[in-house]
């Protein structure tokens, strides 16, 4: 199915959030995730279902002022 990852169209073959992140090559401990602008705590990744055209924001630590 096709989803949006950081505003980019991406094809994935699972609807489980943790599996999607692993498929995409993310290191789980490095990132935090929002689905459709709602924060998904790491403890809920195993149970989180991602649907066709859902939007994921995957963020990491960065410099800031």
């Amino acid at each position, binding site marked *: 199915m096709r989803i949006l990852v950081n505003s980019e169209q991406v094809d994935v073959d699972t609807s489980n959030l943790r599996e999607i992140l692993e498929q995409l090559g993310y290191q789980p401990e490095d990132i935090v995730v929002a689905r459709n602008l709602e924060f998904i705590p790491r403890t809920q990744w195993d149970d989180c279902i991602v649907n066709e055209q859902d939007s994921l924001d995957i963020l990491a*630590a960065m410099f800031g002022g």
Partner: protein
Amino acid sequence: MLDSWEVYDFELQSRLFLGTAQYPSPAIMHEAIEASGAQVLTTSLRRQAPNAGGGQKWWQQLRKLNSQILPNTAGCRNAKEAVTLAHMARELFHTNWIKLEITGDDYNLQPNILELLVATEQLQKEGFKVFAYTTEDLVVCKRLRDLGCQVIMPWGAPIGTGKGLLNPYALKTLRERLLDVSLVIDAGIGLPSHVAQVMELGFDGVLLNTSVARCDDPAKMAKAMHHASVAGRLAYLSGAISERETAVASTPVIGTPFWQSKEN
């Protein structure tokens, strides 16, 4: 020795908060942090490409400094975005401190105070320790205080401008009227003299980034900012004299040499 102060039950000796953006290199940033003496460092969250890893590597290096991390919500346009990002920051940085920034105007990056109040109320209820980036508006700052926000961060001037304090009157008023919260000037600082002015007004601290990171020698400027914060704070504690309109001789008048009574 400078007096210490408390930020949400965390004791600080330094009066400077330092941003971590825009440095020429991580090594120069580390030198500047050390030279500034800052104990609070600001960070952000940004979208990450798969296998990039850069952000995490940088974050691991920053953690070794044992500084207090203050993540920001820079770039958020409304309360919902900011609240979501605050939740993400809490998980990523392992802190409930959040520098709440909500942009209301693209040209001068002025904070959206209406959305700020909404987000502050929600985050305070959820146990976050909010550092509210706002304008110098007294009524807004009073409302932030009433919502439980203990650290209010009015701008000195728009972010990155280096103009110093554009509205000293309003900022002085803020300090005089809000004695029960910490006031930290955030944004617009360009020079150590600006920092000294902030501290002379009785503000509790100053947040710096561009003025240090983008100058030719960040570590040297960071040291200068540190000295300015100390000088300004000591001046505030010393109880400076009031301005007056007429001259008053400092040297004793009695016994002035060559003085003659003018009788003609």
